[in-house]
């Protein structure tokens, strides 16, 4: 298959699958088969794309030109290929999980749910492959809008309120800050094309560049850098499959991915190094890492705790990206993957507990490790990933972030890492203790349905496997920094 066709299929397969789902509305089994097949095919094509990319093919697809100089076009670069494979790869277990979850919960509107999920994945693919800022922006907004029905899926008052915060923050930041930043960039640079080495060098005074960067970092609300983080806890009203894939992987990673793309391909790390204000953004991200962890310490609701943990971990990536050192960028890329594996596992486990035991609070988890050994073992691996302890993927990524901080002489980052490791341990470990070292309470129950279990075990395994076999991902993220000297 030609690379262009492959890119198109990455983009359109989920949409086509979504359409077929709608047609199979009345036949749940067929519908679910289509869903899983679509996810598998998407993953395959993303993987094929990645292989094509590694062979050194130029992967570029001009979709259409809105106005002269204003195109929708796609181009694959290392980080994007990684993101595409990550999102579609995790979609496969998530779709299994979602099927189990929705069935066990006897949710209404399952077809609608799956359909919007497909749209969101398609938008994520668009973001991953975007070749210029406009394309990225377009799919960024599509992702926001297409996840709204998922967030408010339950449809009660709380869900609508959470959904309003979700949509409000994400749209307000993207239209209020990201779009002006994009316009400014276009005005200054005359193009929005992602270019190795950036497009702004020599065209913008450093002080103004700092302002522009601030607009980008805060405008990408999906990266949840404080104070733009409120939407993430609010989005926890969503059904757990949504929290798992979208609010631990696709949506939030789209945020940090956007920031990374902007830093590497719009500003260029070389140019950004001359921008003094850039350091303050590192401090802001570092502050978010710590502050969100402190808030997480005080959460009793599992999903809210995980949401704050996500905020903290996202800022790790932002912080690493803004450190501008090659190794830190490698670390940022690796952490995107590592955190994805870990956090999706944690959310899967939280959802499994909810389905099997109807429990949502940390304080209700006594003895859960005996009742749901698979689930809690996966949860433990996810927790270790968050802390960054071997043998989990988090170790590998933090290793490179630390190395990058040394490279950039950013001792602040090192201090943040030290502090946050201790804090992460403090909010993650008590959960594990509860689950494994206390006697169970309440009525007896078993594990969640098998599709959910398969999903969470496979993502947990992925986290451990990435600890041992990270060479391909490492090579890919390394080539990212090759593109940005």
């Amino acid at each position: 298959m030609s690379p262009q066709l492959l890119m198109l299929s990455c983009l359109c397969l989920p949409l086509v699958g979504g359409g077929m789902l709608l047609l199979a509305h009345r036949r749940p089994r067929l519908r679910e088969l289509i869903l899983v097949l679509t996810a598998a095919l998407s993953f395959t094509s993303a993987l094929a794309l990645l292989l094509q990319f590694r062979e050194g093919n130029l992967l570029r697809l001009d979709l259409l030109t809105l106005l002269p100089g204003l195109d929708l076009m796609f181009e694959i670069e290392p980080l994007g290929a990684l993101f595409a494979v990550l999102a579609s790869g995790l979609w496969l277990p998530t779709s299994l999980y979602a099927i189990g979850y929705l069935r066990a919960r006897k949710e209404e509107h399952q077809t609608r749910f799956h359909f919007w999920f497909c749209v969101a994945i398609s938008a994520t693919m668009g973001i991953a492959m975007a070749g210029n800022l406009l394309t990225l922006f377009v799919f960024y907004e599509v992702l926001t809008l297409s996840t709204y029905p998922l967030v408010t899926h339950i449809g009660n008052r709380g869900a609508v309120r959470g959904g309003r915060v979700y949509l409000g923050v994400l749209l307000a930041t993207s239209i209020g800050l990201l779009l002006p930043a994009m316009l400014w960039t276009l005005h200054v640079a005359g193009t929005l094309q992602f270019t190795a080495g950036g497009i702004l060098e020599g065209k913008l005074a450093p002080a103004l560049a700092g302002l522009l960067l601030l607009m980008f970092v805060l405008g990408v609300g999906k990266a949840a850098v404080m104070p733009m983080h409120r939407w993430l806890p609010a989005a926890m009203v969503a059904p757990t499959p949504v929290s798992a894939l979208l609010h631990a992987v696709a949506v939030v990673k789209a945020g940090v991915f956007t920031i990374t793309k902007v830093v590497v391909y719009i500003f260029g790390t070389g140019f950004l190094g001359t921008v003094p204000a850039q350091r303050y953004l590192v401090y802001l991200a570092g502050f978010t890492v710590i502050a969100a962890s402190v808030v997480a310490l005080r959460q009793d609701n599992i999903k809210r705790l995980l949401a704050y943990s996500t905020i903290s971990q996202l800022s790790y990536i932002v912080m690493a990206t803004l450190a501008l050192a090659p190794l830190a960028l490698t670390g940022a890329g690796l952490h995107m993957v590592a955190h994805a594996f870990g956090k999706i596992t944690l959310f899967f486990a939280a959802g499994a507990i909810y389905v099997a035991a109807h429990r949502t609070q940390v304080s209700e988890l006594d003895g859960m490790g005996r009742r749901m050994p698979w689930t809690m073992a996966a949860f433990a691996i996810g927790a270790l990933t968050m802390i960054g302890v071997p043998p989990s993927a988090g170790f590998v990524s933090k290793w490179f972030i630390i190395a990058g901080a040394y490279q950039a002489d950013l001792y602040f980052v090192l201090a943040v890492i030290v502090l946050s490791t201790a804090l992460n341990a403090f909010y993650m470990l008590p959960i594990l203790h509860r689950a494994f070292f206390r006697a169970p309470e309440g009525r007896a129950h078993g594990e969640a349905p098998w599709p959910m279990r398969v999903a969470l075990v496979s993502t947990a395994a992925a986290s451990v496997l990435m600890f041992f076999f990270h060479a391909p991902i490492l090579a890919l993220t390394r080539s990212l920094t090759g593109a940005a000297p």
Partner: protein
Amino acid sequence: MTDLVWPPALLMLIGALLISVLRGRWQALLILATPLCTLWAIWQLGDGVLQSAPFLGYSLELVEADRVRRLFATIFALMAFAGGLYALRQASWYELSAAYAYAGGAIGVCFAGDLISFFLFWELMALCSTLVIWSAGGDAARRAGLRYAALHLLGGVLLKLGIVGLILHSGSIDLRPLVLAGWDSWLILLGILINAAAPPLAAWISDAYPEASPSGSVFLSAFTTKAAVLALILMFPGTQLLIVVGLVMIFYGIIYALLENDMRRILAYSIVNQVGFMLVGIGIGTEMALNGAAAHAFAHIIYKGLLFMTAGAVLMQTGKRRCSELGGLYQSMPLTTICAIVGALAISSFPFTSGFISKSMIAQGAADQHLALVWYLLTAASAGVFLHAGIKFPWFVFFQKDSGMRPAEPPWNMRAAMLLMAFACIAIGCAPSALYALLPYPVAYVPYTAGHVITQLQLLLFAGLAFFVMLPWMKRTLTISLDADWLYRVLVPALLHAWLRLWRHIDDAIDGALGRLSTLWQRLVVAPHRPSGWIVASWTTGAMALGVLLALALLIWRHLI
């Protein structure tokens, strides 16, 4: 060559894994066989790098052996065996499994030829030891274990920072003697010293070890601190700073142990004290001193394990842990009492016990280097060890006033383990050459000269005299003593609370201001645009017309005037 190697740590880890799966007789067999197989594997290793693997873009040296590494691995494996025997019937499968994985981590550290694999095993130890503590069950163990884990992960990340920095700056991942220069080597030293329980970061040891189960504390006493000692031998031999740190640890341990009432906390502080001796040896850094440090670590693991075993036996049989509640147990637990006394004599380096032949080497090392102050302090400390551990522990637990309790001796496997250890203490003390043969450097030291024996006896016995003379001053009180853990148990939470309160105030203030602003906005801007507001509401036709004319007048006036 490389493909024939059985990595000892791997054997231990596999054993740990299988223990968690198997039950009953097979499990018991495995518990006893695993350390022995590991021991066998340890002695199959020749010197040099024996196994490597690619990781993070480097080539890790997973197994590298030499004399000192083998020595530590040997004692770790032996200790795992003794601990396994001691815990055979009483401990839960998960405690045993965690403890064996913990031992595997320690053995892995012994043979780690590079900084990265060293760190990986180091973290494994931190995690598994936390599980060992938690296995005791109960709230106190939960909190102590959590603090323990957080502190060790913190130490781990400091170590990680140091290692990454060192690798980045030097370009080599080799584990080798370092010079204290630059952030990275300091961070590495700091990370290791946390595990070595150097004050002020020593409080974790007296905080966590006494909360573990009887068998758990036996395991804990052996690995973490001694692995740190090995790391210091490998990376910081001859670093003078360590002499100072070691001396501080020695006296810190003595003073706190004297103040303490909980029997296992006394033993925990005495670990700090003993590791202090080893650090002094490493700091002196001569062959004699390093030999002494290594030998002392070897001997110490045995007698400290023994002491914790006896304390664990008492705890298990009486359920009591405070000195003030114990006493007179020698009447019904004679064997345990004798073992405790052997251990106590060994730790005090009484002649014909293991401590005598190892600790003397360190003192000799100081004397050889003409470090007078160090030598005097070490001598005073020797007396102090007898005071706080050698007499205090057996006296308050087994003798003093009769508590009236008449507990039975512990089960056979525990007795067997204690006897084994007691035998080892005396055997090494009587026939030191076997241990000397294992030491990293050739030994030309004769511990048993008449003068040395007599002066040592003088020192210790007069210390004993001081103990009984000063006994009224050491009345046990129902107290604990503040340690550096006050910082993170009281101060940090208090600061955190204060910060959160402040944060809430700021939040409230912002919310209030935003609320007022939004009210104002609503009233002045939004309300007029409601369907009933004055801007939107249906105007009368006349008003509209008037408005138009006014606008017109305004415009014309603007142009013409």
